[in-house]
């Protein structure tokens, strides 16, 4: 009778131990899967940032970031001049002068923009490893040189949230078009693409013809 009680007690302890192990495993797997990849990328912690590039140049505090600020202030100055122009009085002579000034201003702005683009190009060629493209591929948010200001702003803050490595919804509608598979979650479309550190889902335009 006594040995039967011992057996029951031992069996109960063993069952709880096994149950605990299974629960812990499941929890670990759920935690790992939060990053969307096998083993997870740290359960949703960002693994992107300036140090991820392992580069000898960085967007943080770089001339490129300063250039973006310069461009922004240039834009503000331009807006002020536009407002001043709008307040000009009527009159043919004045209109002519205004026109001439506007023409000269446009020329200067065009030259300035061209020179700025040229300087920017030279800078990026010289600091090719600084991770501008990496920021783009990591977030999937922006592509192209027009995004300089956005990437610079990103460089001065903490690491951006990681792009989803798994489809953003559980049952996306898959539409293959031209070798690219589009995933639809609600009204939002995604495309799987190779990001800086592996495959990610980036928000995209709807597939052609949809």
């Amino acid at each position, binding site marked *: 009778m006594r040995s039967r009680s011992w057996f029951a007690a031992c069996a109960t302890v063993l069952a709880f131990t096994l149950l605990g192990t299974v629960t812990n495993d499941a929890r670990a797997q759920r935690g*790992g899967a939060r990053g969307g*990849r*096998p*083993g997870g*990328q*740290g359960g949703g*912690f*960002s693994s*992107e*940032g*300036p*140090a*991820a*590039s*392992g*580069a*000898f*140049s*960085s967007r*943080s*505090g*770089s001339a490129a970031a300063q250039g973006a600020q310069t461009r922004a202030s240039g834009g503000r100055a331009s807006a002020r001049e536009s407002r001043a122009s709008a307040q000009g009085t009527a009159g043919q002579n004045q209109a002519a002068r205004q026109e001439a000034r506007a023409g000269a201003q446009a020329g200067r702005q065009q030259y300035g923009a061209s020179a700025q683009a040229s300087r920017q190009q030279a800078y990026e*060629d*010289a600091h090719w*490893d600084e*991770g*501008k*493209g*990496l*920021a*783009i*591929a990591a977030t*999937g*948010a*922006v*592509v*192209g*040189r*027009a*995004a300089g200001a956005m990437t610079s702003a990103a*460089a*001065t803050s*903490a*690491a951006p*949230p990681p792009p989803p490595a798994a489809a953003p919804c559980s049952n996306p509608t898959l539409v293959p078009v031209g*070798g*690219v*598979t589009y995933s639809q979650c609600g009204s939002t479309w995604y*495309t799987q*693409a*190779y*990001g*800086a550190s*592996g*495959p*990610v889902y*980036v*928000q*995209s*335009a709807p597939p052609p013809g949809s």
Partner: protein
Amino acid sequence: MRGQTKWTVWLGAWLCAASVLTAGFCEAQEAGRSPSDARALLLGMGEFLGKTQQLSVTVRAAYDTVQASGQKVEWNEVRTLTLSRPDRLRVESERSNGTRSVVVFDGKEISTFDESGRVYAQAAQPGGVDETLVYFVRDLGMRLPLAVLFMSRAASELERRVRAVEYVERTGILGAPAHHLIGRTDTVNFQVWISDGEQPLPQRIVLTYPAAPGQPQFRAEFSAWNLAPQPADALFTFTPPAAASKIPFAAALPQYAPGPAGAPAKKGATR
């Protein structure tokens, strides 16, 4: 007998003096040479790496990312890089979360394959390793830490970027004699331990990003350097595994964001 004793004393005294003088001379030479040669040591490493036609190395790296909470997370990875100039490169990586990937450049195409997701991306890239590294990192936006060191023009890339470099000490703490240097570029502070000897190879590198929030670091230790690996051609051939899907590079996708449309990734320039 007395003459022999005197001779022995003189010999002993001479040997003592000689050893003291030699030690002092060596120390003076080391102290005098090292600080002024710090830049030369750094560029010598770049020159040596750039001229090495074939190599393989294992790089165990860690880097910090600063989270929105302000807390730092350290990520780890191991890369094995095999290089055969002018136009062959293979990099196998394993990240701390267990994901494995491989990058292969065969002189015509660059391919990257993610084992976990069974997906790969490919882009045409005729040219050499130098152009490919630029295209891969800058234009395709892919990670390849310390890519500068594996270019044939590593020395000039370092020379152009490095604003200051100083000699810290000679050390054997990493297992082999090395020169410990510190330096900075416009945006990155770095430390490097370079082997002291005929092969000035990096043993360890620490990069600090002082302008970034939390001043994160990238740290790498190099091991298993092989400067005559004789890799088989197959090592630089990428054959998509069965059931693997091809996906585009994220940077090559047309822009989708509020605002003006951007351009897809341009080809790497050779500068």
